[in-house]
Structures are given as structure tokens and as C-alpha cells.
């Protein structure tokens, strides 16, 4: 029997290794797996490379990992926000590395890894600082930069509902990076509001099929 549900947050993040590349979903605070990130602090893994759109808010989730000194590098599109002090302080102190990637390029590079492709040519960033050092190629008269797949050892995700197979649905704009990151990691872990019976999710409306998910933990929360 397939049962990907686990009983606790500690069990959900068990076994994550030092030095792991961790995809952390969310756009700002929305759709961000804060409880899983908190559990990862407890779990103790360090020297992490984080792939995320932002770099954490206040002291929640990802910001907590940074404050705890567990993050070696952040690959993201937009580290700054009004309350991104954890990252800002670590960055100014030279304690954290930053690799800036355009937002659509981050998600496309993760999808590329998920799809088993070796890379793609993107028009985004051509002629800018962020394309420096990258292979340039003209295809049918337009200039492109070569982008490589971006894969995670682990993905930390947040969804609304799940079943024991790991099928997922989301709420509104909390979907954001979750479905792509779910596909792009070796170990995909999701926190959900609610676990439902197998067969209760509409097969036409499942956004992330369970094949991409390894562990599911219910954390409750608002609907």
C-alpha cells in the first residue's frame, strides 16, 4: 500500500543531509512551507544551498534557517523585501552567498530538470549582467542564452489538500512555485492543511499528481 503520509514534521524532514540543495516554495510568505523549514532547523542540517524566489520574511521559515546559520548560499530572484532582515544582515556580514536568477528562468530551469532535459535557450537576460559568462546563441535571428537544469536534493512544499498517494491541490496564488519544485527534487516533502481519503480529490483538478511527492504531513491551518 502506498502511504506517503508521515505523523510528524520531524519525520517529514528526517534524513536531509548537510550540504543539500533545497528548493523552498512560496512567493513572499504565500505558499511557503514555514513549518517544514522550522522543522529543518530542529533537524540540524547545515551548509545548505537554498533555491527560492525570495529569501525569507522576518524570522519565519527560510529566514529562520538563515538566522540559525544553516544556509551557505541562496539562489533566488528577489532577496529583498520590507522584512527580509535575516538575509540582508547575513549578506552584509558576508556570511551568505547570493546567486541572482530571473524569476521565470529559475522556474524554467527547475522544470527543465524535472523534464529530463539538458538545458534550453532563453531570450531572458540577453545583453545583461546576469547573462555574463553564459553561452550565447543566435537562433532564427534572435539572441538567446543557454540555461542549465536546476535540480534539488529536497523540495519543501506547501499545499492545501493531499491524499495518501501525495496528490495535491492548492489554494489561489499559494500554488506559485510549489508544482514545479515538487517535480524537480529527489525528495519532495509537502505540508498540507488537510489529508483526505484516496479518491476524494477530483482527478480533473489535481494539480500535482502523487508521483512527484515522497512525504506528506498535515499541519492544519486556515482554509
Amino acid at each position: 500500500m502506498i502511504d506517503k503520509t508521515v505523523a510528524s514534521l520531524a519525520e517529514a524532514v528526517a534524513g536531509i543531509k548537510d550540504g543539500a540543495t533545497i528548493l523552498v516554495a512560496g512567493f513572499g510568505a504565500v505558499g511557503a512551507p514555514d513549518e517544514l523549514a522550522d522543522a529543518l532547523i530542529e533537524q540540524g542540517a547545515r551548509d545548505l544551498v537554498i533555491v527560492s524566489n525570495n529569501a525569507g520574511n522576518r524570522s519565519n521559515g527560510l529566514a529562520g534557517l538563515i538566522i540559525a546559520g544553516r544556509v551557505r548560499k541562496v539562489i533566488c530572484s528577489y532577496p529583498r523585501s520590507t522584512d527580509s532582515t535575516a538575509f540582508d544582515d547575513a549578506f552584509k556580514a558576508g556570511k551568505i552567498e547570493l546567486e541572482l536568477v530571473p524569476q521565470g528562468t529559475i522556474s524554467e530551469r527547475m522544470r527543465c530538470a524535472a523534464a529530463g532535459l539538458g538545458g534550453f535557450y532563453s531570450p531572458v537576460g540577453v545583453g545583461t549582467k546576469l547573462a555574463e559568462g553564459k553561452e550565447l546563441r543566435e537562433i532564427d535571428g534572435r539572441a538567446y542564452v543557454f540555461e542549465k537544469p536546476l535540480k534539488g536534493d529536497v523540495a519543501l512544499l506547501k499545499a492545501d489538500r493531499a491524499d495518501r498517494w501525495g496528490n495535491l491541490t492548492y489554494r489561489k496564488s499559494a500554488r506559485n512555485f510549489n508544482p514545479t519544485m515538487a517535480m524537480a527534487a529527489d525528495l519532495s516533502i509537502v505540508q498540507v492543511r488537510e489529508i483526505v481519503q484516496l479518491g476524494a480529490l477530483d482527478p480533473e483538478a489535481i494539480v500535482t499528481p502523487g508521483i512527484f511527492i515522497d512525504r506528506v504531513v498535515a499541519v492544519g491551518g486556515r482554509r
Partner: protein
Amino acid sequence: MKPLSRRQIAWRAAQDLEDGSYVNLGIGLPTLVADFIPDGREIVFHSENGILGLGKAPPPGEGDPDLINAGKGAASLVPGGAFFHHTDAFLMIRGGHLDYSLLGAFEVSETGDLANWTTEDPDYPPGVGGAMDLAAGAKEVRVLCEHTTKDGQPRIRQRCHYPLTAAGVVRRVYTNLAVLDIGPAGVVVREMVEGLGLAALQAKTEARLQLADDWRPLAPPPL
């Protein structure tokens, strides 16, 4: 001579959005455009975090925490709106599916280069977000900005001094003084605020300006 207010710049840009257009509004000044769509036009607003049919900000306290816009403020969805994931949101942007991307700018060059993502302020970590994707992908990129910086330096330049967001993409610029088209003929003044002559506008502009034969006064209503 009376320069336009920020709301008037947004009003002017809104008048040019045809009924049925799909539009992404950048953070800041472009966001105001949504408030000035002429009656009877149905415009579908896209948000990079996975929304088509972005509606107005809900009354304070009535928003759904899972529904935010690209600026991470509370948002709403109009009837006919849809949610999707980040990679699809950027497929729409990069793949030329949006009719207009309206962006803010630090600088625009006479060949349509855009600089709007970093001033290289050493006190802050840089952030690019979706700026490069939005500048590279829409069917047409238009800019809304003040004609000069706070200390009077021109923003419409022969060449950008800040790092580029994208090269050769801007087709139209709405400022507090003029509406400018950028094309094979260079920078063409289509509208100027009343009481301002071409020489006076040129004095505030580094790029060489040409006056369109059919130029008109830029005269928004009081807002």
C-alpha cells in the same frame, strides 16, 4: 506648464489599452493603471505569481491571505479569472502571450534599452524578480516613469548608465511631461504637456527628440 501627477501618467497609459488586452502591470507606478481603465473596456490583468484576472485590492481586512499580487499586497480575482503555477505564469510572459507589459524604469535609451532592476547600491543585495522576463517577453513593452530623476537628471538617455534589464525592447514611454515612441526613426514626441515646447522638453532629455507631425497636447483630466 503643469507636469502630470503619477495618477495622471497612469491614466494616460490606461487610455491606450484596447478592449480585450492581456496586460501585466509592473510594481509601482504601472500598478496605478488598473484604476483608470475607460468604462466598457474589459482588460485581463496578469500577475507573475500565477493569476489571470487580477482584480482590485479588497477592503482592508477582507482579503484572502492566499491571494496576493506581484507586489505581495492583498488582491482579488474577477469572474473568469484563473490560477496556475509560476512556470506557466512565466511561459505566458516569455512566450509573447501578453499584449502589454507596463514597466517602471530608472532609464530608457533611445534604442529602447531598459534599465529598471538595479542601481547597484552597495548597501543592499540586488534583486531582479520578474523584471527581465517581463521586459523580454511581452508583445509590447511600455514604460511609465518621471521624465527626470529627483535631482533633474534625464531618464530618457542616449544610452543607459545603469545595468540593463533588456536591450531594445521599449516601444513607448509615458512620462509626466510627454508621450514618446521609440522606433526606427528614433525617439518621437507624440504628446507634450501644454505650455512646454520641444526645446524645453529636449533640455530635460538626453536622447535626441523628434516631434511627430501630428503631435498633440498631453492633457489628462484632473485626478
